[in-house]
């Protein structure tokens, strides 16, 4: 192992420019991927925020007995899709309407507004089909006059989410593939620069494993350093955007750690592929 590390250090010392170039290339490839990840994260969070407002409002018939309402609330709360059920009395509805539309506050009268139940759904159950299904079940109560849930709005929101999700995966894969190709090519340059040394090592009886090891460690370390630099750059970009344009969120530490580790693994795999190809050919 000592010898392997000595070879890694020798490799770096021998071609500092190529080593720096490798790390910078890896850093910028991962930075582009990181920025894209940040975009996906924030778009997803924004959509999730909007989605939380998906709610079903069931208007109740006048004169519905409080016991019936309580029983229905109990039933509906027990639906697996339902997060919470709130009862809104005509007085509460009036206060809300007056607050939201102050110019009409003299027009409203509590007697115009029916009592209602506001049903919020759990995360993962806010898609149009589930919302419609829950709505239909609520409609079966005889004292429910009407149920509203903004069908068009829910559908549009989901279309946007689906498009954003698909675009996110496609572009993410594309960015990742570009990063892997660029990193692989950079590492291949390092391997080619040392091809003479590799041929001498093999000539004197070094095993493929022995030849490969320093390159794998070299690739992993460069990937790791590149990943750290990319994380710093992404954090800097996020800081600038957050302080000058719009409020954004950053990756949580676990994801950031995985990103840096991912850089190391891409470096390792890139090296393994490049050296493997070189050894098979030589």
């Amino acid at each position, binding site marked *: 192992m000592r010898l392997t590390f000595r070879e890694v250090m020798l490799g770096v010392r021998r071609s500092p420019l190529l080593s720096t170039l490798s790390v910078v290339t890896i850093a910028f490839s991962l930075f582009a991927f990181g920025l894209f990840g940040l975009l996906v994260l924030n778009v997803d969070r924004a959509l999730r925020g909007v989605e939380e407002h998906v709610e079903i409002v069931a208007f109740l018939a006048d004169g519905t007995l409080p016991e019936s309402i309580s029983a229905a609330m109990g039933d509906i709360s027990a639906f697996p899709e339902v997060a919470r059920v709130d009862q809104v009395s005509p007085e509460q509805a009036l206060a809300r309407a007056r607050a939201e539309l102050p110019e009409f506050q003299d027009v409203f009268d509590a007697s115009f507004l029916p009592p209602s139940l506001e049903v919020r759904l759990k995360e993962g159950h806010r898609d149009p089909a589930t919302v419609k299904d829950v709505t239909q079940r609520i409609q079966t109560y005889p004292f429910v006059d009407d149920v509203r849930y903004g069908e068009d709005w829910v559908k549009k929101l989901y279309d946007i989410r689906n498009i954003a999700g698909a675009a996110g995966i496609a572009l993410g894969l594309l960015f990742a593939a570009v990063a892997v190709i660029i990193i692989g090519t950079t590492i291949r340059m390092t391997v080619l620069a040392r091809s003479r040394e590799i041929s001498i090592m093999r000539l004197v009886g070094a095993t*493929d494993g022995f030849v490969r090891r320093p390159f794998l460690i070299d690739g992993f370390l460069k990937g790791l350093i590149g990943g750290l630099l990319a994380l710093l750059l992404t954090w800097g970009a996020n800081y600038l955007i957050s302080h000058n344009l719009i409020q954004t969120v950053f990756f949580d530490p676990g994801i950031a750690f995985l990103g840096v580790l991912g850089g190391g693994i891409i470096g390792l795999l890139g090296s393994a592929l490049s050296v493997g190809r070189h050894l098979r050919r030589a």
Partner: protein
Amino acid sequence: MIRFSHVVKEYPRTGLALNDVTFRVNKGEFAFLTGPSGAGKSTILRLVIVEERPTAGEVRVSGSLTSGLPRGEIPRLRRRIGVVFQDFRLLEDRTAEENIAFALEVTGAPREGIPARVSRLLTQVGLASKGTSYPKELSGGEQQRVAIARALVNDPVLLVADEPTGNLDDRATRGVFQLLRDINAAGTAVLMATHNLELVKRNTYRVIEVNRGQLVFDSADGNGGAATVTSSTPA
């Protein structure tokens, strides 16, 4: 030590490099491999060090049949063979000592024994005072001596030399060749590819000559080699 039986080597791009070559180099023997450029000498040497495998026929080196040898076994076989090239193939950024030690290190030799072994080998090749010199600080002959010392680190049973004097002047050639003779006298078989007909003629060692991929002469067959040897044209 080396046994070629009806060996054929064909490359996809350049075609037939060796055609039905059969010969044998015995333990402790010294043999010249001669022939014009492109005759197949380097292909034979590459087959011996298992850089190539035969298309047909059999190559046996130190008892191992190379065609069926698993990839993982090749390094072990190479440790029993020393190899020397015309262009020395030394690592330019390492001293003579480090170049020799490197060959020991890659084979996993115990660290504590390496300096003494390197020093002994440098003395053996006449470079005891040049251990800390870098290749570019050494003459061609000295660089080849370092390469020979490196080839000897694992006490090989066979030394394969591909034009080892090709880049050297007469004096250096004599020195390097004497070194190869000494190594052979100590029991290591030597197979030396060369264009240097003077060298071949001045010595009584066995001569194997190839031309256009075929073995055209082998002095071990008892025909006397002088006439055939002169048919080799220097590069």
